[in-house]
C-alpha cells in the first residue's frame, strides 16, 4: 500500500515536471520527426525489409535519447533529496514506469510517421502495433537501467550507447524477426509465441535486475 503510493508520487512528479517544462517531450518529438523526415528524403518508399530494419534502428536511437534525459535532468542535489525521502526501489520502479510510458508514446508516434512518410508495407497493422508496444517496453526497460549506470559515470550519453547497443542486440534481433509477422510472413506453429514469451521473460529479468542492482548505484 505504502509502496505503491510512494511509486505513484514519484511517477506523478516526473509527469508533472514533464508537463510543466515540456522539454523532453518536444525535444524527443522533434528528434523523431526530423530523423524520419531525413529517412524519407533519402529513401522515399523503401522495401519492407529495409522499412523494418530502419524502424527498429530509429526506435533504438529514440530510446537512447528519451531515456537518457530522465536521469540527466536529475541534479546531484535533487538526487540527494530523493535519497533522503524515498527508497531506491521506489525510485527505480517509478523511473521504469515513466520511461516505458514516454517510450510507448514515442514509438506509436514514430509508427504513425513511418506510415505516413515511408509507405506502408504492413499486412497486419494491428499485430505490428502490438509488437511495437512490446518492443518499446523492452527497449525502455533496458535503457533505463543503463541510464542509471551511465549517470554514475562521466560522458553519459555516449557511454549509454556503448553499453547499450551490444546488450540490446538479442532483443532487437528477436523484434525484427517477430515483426516480419506483421509484414505477412508465415511462422511455424508456436515459433511466434515462443519468441514473444522469450521477450517477456527478458523484460521480467531486466526489471528484477534493476530492482536488485539499483540500490547499489544509488548510494554515493
Amino acid at each position, binding site marked *: 500500500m505504502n509502496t505503491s503510493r510512494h511509486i505513484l508520487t514519484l511517477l506523478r512528479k516526473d509527469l508533472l515536471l514533464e508537463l510543466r517544462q515540456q522539454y523532453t517531450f518536444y525535444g524527443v518529438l522533434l528528434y523523431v520527426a526530423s530523423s524520419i523526415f531525413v529517412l524519407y528524403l533519402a529513401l522515399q518508399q523503401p522495401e519492407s525489409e529495409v522499412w523494418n530494419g530502419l524502424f527498429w534502428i530509429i526506435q533504438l536511437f529514440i530510446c537512447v535519447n528519451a531515456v537518457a534525459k530522465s536521469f540527466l535532468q536529475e541534479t546531484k542535489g535533487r538526487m540527494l533529496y530523493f535519497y533522503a525521502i524515498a527508497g531506491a526501489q521506489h525510485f527505480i520502479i517509478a523511473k521504469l514506469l515513466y520511461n516505458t510510458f514516454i517510450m510507448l508514446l514515442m514509438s506509436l508516434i514514430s509508427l504513425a510517421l513511418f506510415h505516413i512518410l515511408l509507405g506502408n508495407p504492413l499486412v497486419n497493422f494491428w499485430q505490428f502495433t502490438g509488437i511495437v508496444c512490446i518492443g518499446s517496453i523492452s527497449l525502455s526497460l533496458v535503457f533505463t537501467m*543503463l541510464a542509471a*549506470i551511465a549517470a554514475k*559515470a562521466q560522458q553519459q550519453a555516449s*557511454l549509454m550507447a556503448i553499453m547499450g547497443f551490444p*546488450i540490446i542486440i538479442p532483443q532487437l*534481433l528477436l523484434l525484427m524477426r517477430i515483426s516480419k509477422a506483421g509484414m505477412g510472413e508465415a511462422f511455424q506453429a508456436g515459433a511466434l509465441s515462443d*519468441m514473444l514469451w522469450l521477450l517477456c521473460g527478458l523484460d521480467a*529479468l531486466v526489471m528484477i535486475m534493476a530492482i536488485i542492482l539499483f540500490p547499489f548505484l544509488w548510494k*554515493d
Partner: protein
Amino acid sequence: MKISWWKILCVILVLYTLIGGLLFDVPHKKILNESIRNIYFHVPMWFGMMVLFSISVVYSIKYLRNPSLLYDIQASAYARTGIVFGILGLITGALWANYTWGKAWSNDIKQLGAAMALLVYAAYFVLRNSMIDIDKRARVGAVYNIFAFAMLFPALWIVPRLVESLHPGGAGNPGADPRDMDARMRFIFWLGAVPGFILLGIWISTIIVRFRKIEDKNLLHA
C-alpha cells in the same frame, strides 16, 4: 616455489590435447577432413570464455555484498582473460569456417553471439576506465557486469535455438557435429581439451590478479 596440483594438471592436459589433438587418428568426414581437429581448440575457447565470465560475475556479486578492492581486481582480471579467450575462439572459428563453410564470416547466429559477448565486455572496460574514483569504478563496474551477464547469457543460450544456424545441430549443415566425434576424440575433447583450457584461463587470470595486487599494494593495505 609453490606448486599447485591443478597447475600441473593443466600443463598435462593441455600438452595431451596438443599432442593427441594434432597426432592421433581422427574420423575422415566429408568437407571436414583433418580440420575436425580444430574442435579441440575452437570449442574449448567458448567453454573457457563462459567459465571465466561466470567467475568474473561471481566476484562482482561478492564485491557488492562485501566491498573489497581485491574482489574488483579479480572480477576485472577474469573478464579480461575471458575476452582473450573469446577473441581466440572467434579467430579459430573464422579459420575453420573459411575452409568448411566457404567464408570466414557468414553472419551465423553463434558468430553474432560471440561478437556480442566481446562487445559487451569491451564496454565493461570502457565503463570502468571512464571513472577515476576507485570505489565508484568498482561498484558501477560490478553492477554493469552482473546486469550484462544476466542479459547476455540467456540470449546466448536461447536465441540460437530459435533461428537457423550453420553450427552443429542445425538442419542441412555441412559443419562439425558432436556426433561426428568418435570415442577417442570425445575422450581427448572432454577430458583433455575442455578442462585443460579452462584451467589455463584461470591460471592466467590468477597471474594477472597477483600482478595487480603488487601494483595496487598501497590501496589494498590502506
